[in-house]
């Protein structure tokens, strides 16, 4: 059931975007998010579309693959578009029963839909082109300033990368426990929501126990390999900006400036 999550899985191809430093890509995603919230006219969205699809083309990830990642958020998308569609006051277009569709509502709903779609596509593009490890490395490095206020950045990054490493193992384990219990007559398929949720309890208890056991084993193994926190640690793959990253930063600065200009001038 959890095997076919496309949202946020690495898409292994060689492309200029894949090769960028994760910090550059993190910054790019941030820029896109801000720009999308600043944008309020068609020209701004046009610029955003140009920017986003330009990067998608450069990343060599098929557009269809990214669109598939939209499925889980489809409901949210329709829901927020509908809200804007029916609840914006203005020039009336259609009216039936208690619903009124206005011209302004139509425009806002459209913009909202485009904004959310671009948002999800942009952020999933980040995870499609960046391995979880690079991502945690990038986050660790770019959030390092938080150390000053005693946020344990290295530890959080370590927790994240270990969690990512254990997801497939725990999924497999869930599958195994499920099958073992089904073999003894457990029923996970039928019944209402509450019955199904109750059926999950005998699944979750052994899963938790095994997860804790694994955690304790792993802690021992890490200790045995001299792990003692981030202090005095070196990196096998230190992050390094290259020419491509500097170029990317130029584009990343030009793009929001353009959007702001388009908003102010038009």
């Amino acid at each position: 059931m959890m095997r076919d999550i496309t949202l946020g899985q690495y898409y292994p191809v060689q492309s200029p975007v894949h090769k960028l430093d994760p910090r550059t890509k993190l910054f790019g995603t941030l820029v896109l998010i801000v720009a999308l919230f600043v944008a309020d006219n068609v020209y701004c969205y046009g610029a955003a579309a140009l920017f986003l699809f330009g990067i998608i083309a450069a990343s060599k990830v098929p557009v269809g693959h990214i669109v598939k990642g939209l499925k889980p958020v489809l409901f949210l998308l329709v829901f927020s578009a509908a809200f804007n569609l029916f609840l914006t006051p203005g020039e009336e277009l259609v009216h039936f029963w208690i619903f009124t569709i206005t011209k302004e509502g139509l425009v806002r709903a459209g913009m909202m839909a485009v904004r959310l779609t671009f948002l999800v596509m942009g952020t999933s593009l980040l995870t499609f082109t960046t391995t979880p490890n690079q991502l945690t490395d990038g986050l660790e490095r770019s959030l390092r300033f938080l150390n000053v206020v005693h946020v344990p950045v290295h530890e959080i990054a370590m927790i994240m990368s270990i969690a990512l490493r254990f997801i497939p193992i725990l999924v497999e384990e869930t599958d195994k426990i499920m099958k073992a219990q089904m073999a003894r007559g457990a029923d996970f398929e039928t019944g209402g929501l509450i019955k199904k949720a109750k059926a999950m309890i005998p699944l979750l208890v052994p899963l938790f126990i095994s997860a804790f056991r694994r955690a304790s084993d792993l802690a021992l193994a890490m200790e045995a390999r001299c792990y003692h926190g981030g202090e005095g640690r070196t990196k096998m793959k230190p992050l390094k900006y290259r020419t491509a990253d500097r170029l990317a930063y130029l584009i990343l600065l030009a793009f929001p400036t353009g959007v702001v200009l388009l908003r102010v001038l038009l």
Partner: protein
Amino acid sequence: MGIIKAKNLIYNYIKRDEEEKVEEVNEAVKDVSLDIEAGQFVAVLGHNGSGKSTLAKHMNALLLPSEGTVWIGGMDTKDDDSLLEVRRTAGMVFQNPDNQIIASVVEEDVGFGPENMGVPTDEIWRRVDECLKAVGMTAYRRSSPDRLSGGQKQRVAIAGVMAMEPKCIVLDEPTAMLDPNGRREVIRTVRELNKKKGITVILITHYMEEVIHADRIYVMDEGEIAMEGTPEEIFGRVDELKALRLDVPQVTELAHGLRKKGVPLSPCILDVEELVGELVGIRKQRTAQ
């Protein structure tokens, strides 16, 4: 003094109730003394609950003795300041291959130990290349550990320990969760490291076939060392081994039975070829008479 030395080592697992009062004391290791020379291949045999894993954890300072002393490379494991140095000297490979691989890419996992030790980046890469080559896993360096078989994962774990350049490696039942093929893979790798790189190996196991090439064997029972000697000496005492609930290899048992019935075989036969060789020799002698 050898690279690993224990003197009158005692370790108690203490079970406490809610008020921190001692409820039960379980003596896992009782008065063990041993001395292991550098470069040796030493095996520790014992059935489940014999205290062999507890002993192994003392060699990496993961457990500290309740009484007695353990020295690793001359350092007392109780000394807090030399903790990292002790762990650098004696690396440890555990039983479950999944629970000791930390990174989600093979080469990054091998680099984890050196990273913790603060080794410079170039040197980490050199070590990772070398260690992956030594365990024959270079082809998989960019794979995810989830795609590997149990034996391959265990070899990655060994490479991860090797990358810390320890003087000795302690393997705590590294093959217990593997299939026969994976077991052979791992044991072959460990033997090669011992022979080619001169790393001291302490192999903890309950499979007797794995220890026939050891230089020295300790057999543990009830937290004590019950037997000690070379494989030939140990395997000649089949009845004692069976009393300690250990599985004697089939060939050895067969040879032992034959000898009891009066076939003049040598006291210690460890593999099929050896037995066949001796039997053929005996038949030739008889037909010659």
